[in-house]
């Protein structure tokens, strides 16, 4: 079939038009005049959507370009690639593992004097503070504690988890005598949570400014945590806990507790739903024991990751980003976070938490009496991996607590 030249041109134009039209309609939609704010989160779309929908409803001139990368290594690498490749998101998540790098490379905006930071708890500000400047907005926190099986404690004539470390060790000995496995923790997935709590209490008593620790030229987290490590190791030195914890994962330990095979374990709120669903499990959640009666009962805990604004943002997009953070620290967003199970720490707001968590929430989370070593030293990833490996060797009896501290500090020094 032969077609005229003009017919062919008309047909080609129509085909090209058909291809271009849908593309053109994308740009010509309702979002054309809106300010586009890019937001990289590590919460998935399902979790983030209610917040985004409500924000866009309240701010019809702003549309959020949402993207997501799962925590933690994947998220950190995605953000890193986007920052280096000049594709930085306007708003993103700042957390323990990337905050030092973000601050060192000046990627995050100073939020210290922003009006929306007024209601943020001091411990949450300290988490992302460098040289008196706050670089992120974190609105909730978590604190670990001792989960206990009330029925098993009763067997050894104990009603509750002791308040001090010596009493805790004595209670473990009593439980062991009664034929009950007193306590388990994982050393396979990471270091124990107890030494961090002791170190936090020690820093608080000494009046140490924890926000200045990362600025020190020589990083000595090993030396700083040595005393706490020595105290914690009494669990193993007194043969109260099996050294097989080196090969036990957090899931293994949780399963043992749910099956009523161990009286106490150390974990956090993320495991509550499992305990609530376990049939016939009579459980409680207590504060971690204090180092001694001279110290306050601290917990291993941390503010949840915060939101940060890209430092090079300006004009309308900067205003939109500030509006978004103000919204995320507002009543509606905090209520929604609380409904999702987060322990909100923003001042003048009380989260409704699980009954068992009430004590730890009131005494540790709300008061900021929690501490996580990773949050306050340079190179938290190096610290995390070094302490895990060295702690496994310590529990195996291959090295002493002094060697543990020396090895951790040597690893930190080589990474600076």
């Amino acid at each position, binding site marked *: 079939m032969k077609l005229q030249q003009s017919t062919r041109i008309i047909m080609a134009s129509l085909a090209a038009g058909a291809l271009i039209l849908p593309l053109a309609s994308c740009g010509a939609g309702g979002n054309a005049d809106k300010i586009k704010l890019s937001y990289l989160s590590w919460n998935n779309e399902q979790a983030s959507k209610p917040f985004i929908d409500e924000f866009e409803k309240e701010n019809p001139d702003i549309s959020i370009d949402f993207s997501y990368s799962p925590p933690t290594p994947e998220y950190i*690498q995605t953000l890193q690639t986007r920052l280096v490749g000049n594709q930085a998101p306007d708003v993103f998540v700042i957390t323990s593992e990337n905050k030092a790098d*973000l601050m060192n490379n000046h990627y995050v905006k100073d939020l210290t004097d922003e009006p929306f930071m007024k209601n943020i708890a001091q411990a949450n500000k300290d988490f992302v503070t460098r040289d008196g400047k706050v670089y992120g907005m974190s609105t909730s926190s978590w604190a670990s504690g001792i989960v206990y099986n009330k029925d098993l404690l009763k067997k050894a004539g104990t009603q509750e988890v002791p308040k001090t470390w010596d009493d805790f060790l004595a209670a473990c000995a009593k439980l062991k005598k009664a034929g009950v496995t007193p306590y388990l923790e994982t050393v*396979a997935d990471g270091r124990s949570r107890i030494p961090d709590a002791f170190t936090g209490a020690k820093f608080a008593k000494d009046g140490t400014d924890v926000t200045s620790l990362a600025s020190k030229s020589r990083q000595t987290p090993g030396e700083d945590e040595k005393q706490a490590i020595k105290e914690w190791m009494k669990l193993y030195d007194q043969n109260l806990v099996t050294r097989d914890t*080196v*090969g*036990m994962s957090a899931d293994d330990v949780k399963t*043992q507790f749910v099956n009523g095979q161990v009286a106490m374990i150390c974990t956090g709120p993320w495991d509550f739903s499992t305990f609530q669903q376990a049939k016939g499990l009579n459980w409680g959640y207590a504060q971690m024991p204090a180092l001694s009666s001279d110290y306050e009962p601290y917990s291993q805990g941390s503010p949840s990751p915060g939101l940060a604004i890209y430092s090079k943002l300006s004009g309308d997009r900067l205003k939109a980003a500030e509006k978004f953070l103000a919204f995320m620290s507002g009543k509606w967003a905090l209520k929604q976070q609380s409904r999702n199970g987060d322990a909100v720490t923003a001042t003048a707001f009380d989260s409704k938490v699980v009954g068992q968590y009430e004590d730890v929430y009131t005494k540790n989370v709300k008061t900021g009496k929690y501490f996580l070593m990773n949050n306050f030293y340079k190179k938290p*990833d190096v610290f995390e991996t070094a302490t895990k490996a060295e702690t496994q*060797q310590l529990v195996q009896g291959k090295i002493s607590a002094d060697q543990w501290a020396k090895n951790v500090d040597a690893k930190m020094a080589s990474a600076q």
Partner: protein
Amino acid sequence: MMNPCSRTAQAAEDAVRPVRGYSNHNHERHQMSGITTSVNASAHESREYRNRKRMQGFREDVTSFWFLLPILAVFVVLFLVPLIQTLYFSFTDFNGYSMNLHWQGLSNYRKVFSDPSTLEGLGFTILYAIVVMIGVTLLAIPLAVVVNHKFFGHNFVRSVFFFFSVPSLAIMGMVWKYIFSPMKSGVVNSVLSVFGIAPIPWLSNSGLAKFCVIFIAIWAQIGWHATLYLAFLQSIPADLYEQATVDGASPFQQFMHITVPQLMPGIVTSTFLLMSGGLKVYDLPFTMTKGGPGYSTYTVTQSIIQQGIGQSQYGVGSALAVLFFLATAVVVMLQLWFSNVISARFE
């Protein structure tokens, strides 16, 4: 249909043919006119022939180049460029956040050699690669010989052994973690308790953890390599065995003097794959022990990923990657040389 290559060859042949015809015709004339003219002309012809031949070769090279271009492009983009970039990063303080790089000289290389965890990782990687290579080879050959015989259900048995290697080692690691759990409730310990044996700290003891990782690697790979050997076994002529039987050779003598020498190309292939795979191992130890207890099952690949990407020390990670690349190249070349020497001895 003629393919482009053969078409080119045909064209070249056609181009050469008239020259040969001309040469024959000329030869007759020279016989009549004199020897000198004949020598000059034939030298000229052979030069022309060589030139045409060279042109033909060049044209073929150009054609081959176009065929090789896609794979060459993939090689350059996905291998050569990252390799050169890695080499460059290994001399800098690149942290993944800033492209404002500073030249560090050999300091990243010095860090690699002074880090005890990396050296421990290197030790376990070499141990793993060598033991797994020897273990798999020693077990896969007899297994292949056994399943090469016809017996009831031999196809089923072959399939069962092959299936061990179908799931990825990462999944194997997760499953075996529960089997070798040091707790009383661990699968192996539960079985042992039936016989009154106390729980064994499988994954919480450094030595036992190394054993567990290597044991599973051997167990999972035997079937695949036995299948490889089976293919080589089936190509050994049966009359060799018949003659040996007539000569009174025992089954062991037949195995040592017929089967093993005939399997040598298979052994070279299998050990090469095992060695190169063993040196870059990551998935199995990571899913089973995450490199622990301590650094007992830590591997070089885990160290590269952990230091380079996990801890944003791309300089150190790159230095380690460069050194590992060179070390692997040397080990693999040595292995190939050794295999060739052994093969030559059996030929």
